[in-house]
């Protein structure tokens, strides 16, 4: 399968071109965030900042509670993922291993829940949260995010549990484990990478949410998640693109880092529940 020199050059050129085109918007965001405000409404555009400035970052951190927004996003993501993981590990294991009568239908229900439009469920949730006085409270978001993390986590985890040989549990039970301790001591440690990937993935899903956060928390700026906060920058009485881009960059950084870590597991995460 040796490749000729010419073929190699073409291949590299192609790869580089494709990547440049696809990743360029991200570069442009970064570039804009380093630009002084006066430069943004002027042509020709500056592709490489001769004097990059972090003024936009400084201003956005000074003038907006970005730190609070980031913390809110993180709190909600951790809590909603923890909640979802707790119920999903048990349910995924049950569907994968025990297969009690009816559990397959329940599994199917979780799968169908992934098709639920969030714009539908948000209406009754709003009504319920209003009665529980949770509007404007981060707890509302934790519960709302569980509506989309749980169905996916159940299937992703079921997929991982399916790959662990049942003989290992049988052996553990002979050694005196009961099914619960077998799950905790044998199955869970063995599926650690799967648990980690599912947890991270749930975190990403929660972090990316906009519609729930926008609706339940919009009135309370100190409860905003970073997505709502950054989106609101565009509606300002003055439009500062460099600050908006700085904010966007900060907001997506945790997810990009998660992606770099998660990349290997992405496939199983994306197709969770889709293959038997």
């Amino acid at each position, binding site marked *: 399968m040796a490749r000729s020199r010419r073929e190699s050059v073409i291949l590299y050129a192609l790869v580089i071109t494709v990547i440049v085109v696809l990743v360029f918007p991200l570069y442009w965001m970064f570039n804009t965030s380093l630009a002084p405000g*006066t430069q943004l*409404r*002027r*042509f*020709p555009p500056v592709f490489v900042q001769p004097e990059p400035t972090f003024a936009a970052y400084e201003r956005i951190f000074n*003038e907006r509670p970005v730190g609070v927004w980031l913390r809110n996003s993180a*709190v909600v993501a*951790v*809590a909603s993922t*923890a*909640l979802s*993981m*707790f119920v999903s*590990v048990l349910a995924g294991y049950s569907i994968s291993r025990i297969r009690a009568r009816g559990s397959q239908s329940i599994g199917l229900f979780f799968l169908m829940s992934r098709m639920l439009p969030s714009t539908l469920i948000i209406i009754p949730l*709003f009504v319920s*949260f*209003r009665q529980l*006085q949770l*509007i*404007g409270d981060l*707890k509302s978001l*934790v519960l709302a995010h569980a509506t989309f993390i749980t169905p996916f986590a159940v299937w992703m985890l079921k997929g991982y549990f399916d790959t662990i040989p049942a003989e290992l549990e049988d052996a553990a039970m002979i050694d005196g484990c009961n099914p619960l301790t077998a799950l*905790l*001591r044998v199955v*869970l*440690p063995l*599926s*650690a990478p799967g*648990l980690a990937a599912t947890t991270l993935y749930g975190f990403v899903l929660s972090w990316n949410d906009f519609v729930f956060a926008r*609706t*339940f928390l*919009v*009135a*309370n*700026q*100190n409860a905003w998640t970073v997505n709502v906060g950054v989106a*609101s920058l*565009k*509606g*300002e*009485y*003055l*439009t500062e693109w460099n600050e908006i881009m700085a904010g966007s960059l900060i907001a997506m950084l945790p997810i990009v880092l998660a992606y770099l870590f998660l990349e290997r597991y992405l496939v199983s995460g994306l197709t969770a529940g889709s293959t038997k």
Partner: protein
Amino acid sequence: MFVARVFLMMSLVLVALFSAAITGAQDTTLTLISWQVDEPVGDWWRAAIEEFESAHEGVTIEFTKVARPEYADTFLTLFAGGTPPEIVHLASFEYQQFADAGWMEDLGPWIEDSDLDLEGWAGQAKCHWGGQTACIMLQFFGFVMVVNDAILEEAMMEAPTNWDEYIAVLRATTKDTDGDGIVDQWGACHHTAEGSQYLSQMLSYVVGAGAYWTTSEGEVNINTPEMVEGFTRWKTILDERLTPLDLASGDCRQLMMEGKLATKLEGPWIYGFVLRAEPEIQENLRVVRVPFEVPVGGASNVIAMASEISDEKKALVWDFIALITSHEWQVQFGLHVGQPAPRPGTLVDEYYDAIPHVDLLLESQNTASAHGIDRSPTGLEIVYNEFAKIVREEAQRMVADDVDPAEIVAGLHDLALELQAAG
């Protein structure tokens, strides 16, 4: 066992999070949400809050910002969610839907018990809703125009005083100044992005042509020759790209501050932004009369009280309202927004030093008032959002598909009637 432990920890974190009981009642906190927090007038609000807090031991006011485009939606969520801000600050064209839902306290009895005299208070009539006094008018205004003398001079033109001159200035000044084939200077700038502000932007041309959405009795009055003229003017400006397109109000103000607009139609608050421009640009910016007989004007924003709060809090809110409607604070308010306050007798000499064009502002707001102009049309108040949406959609259709304005106007008339009947 690591995983099992992590698992257990996660469950614990969760339980802790949910069982974190509502923190015990602390000192009284009132909420005041405003879109003006970072505007020049934000300083006035902060000063008033400070004054109030120092007079009321143990009471704090939380001053939170929500941006204008999502303001009405946010308030709706808040009121419907049962967590309204105690002190209600709203634009005058949106308060009606809240008053209509019974969410706003009738201020009548509070005013009677106080020494606040609303006689001659500009625009206060707009605060009467359903036989009650739903609010107190905070700002009543008329549009003005900022012109950039450097750009006019270069085009060898004067500040326009009527539509023909205005459109001539726009045509002469909208151009590519650096020869790269891209227009970088405009005659005007309007918010044409999504949102209800589209309607307010068109309104200059509608009332400028002598038209208005409804009669003073609240009857839909759209299908008139004047309205057709107004829509034709709006279409001309968009067709000929005399304003940059798709921008929001914020972008427009920025362009004005960067000296790239020949003219800018806006309310008196624009002066605060003129003062923020760099000195070499600021010296070219001048506030003049709008080039139309009738300017956009009317009520701007109101202060009110939520009805579903404790009596104790109501008394505190009233104290705050009484404070900011007092003579001293009204004078300060006017100085901060760059426009005389609605309270009679607050037009002190300081204004003339701070705002060179005070007389112009008064003239503009009186003309608008005399013609019954307001951004919220009488008879369509509670369906304002829907109304703004259909006008925007029809106007966009007129421009995009090059439809005859007469046809659009006739269609809008019927749509508005339908909306009024359904609302």
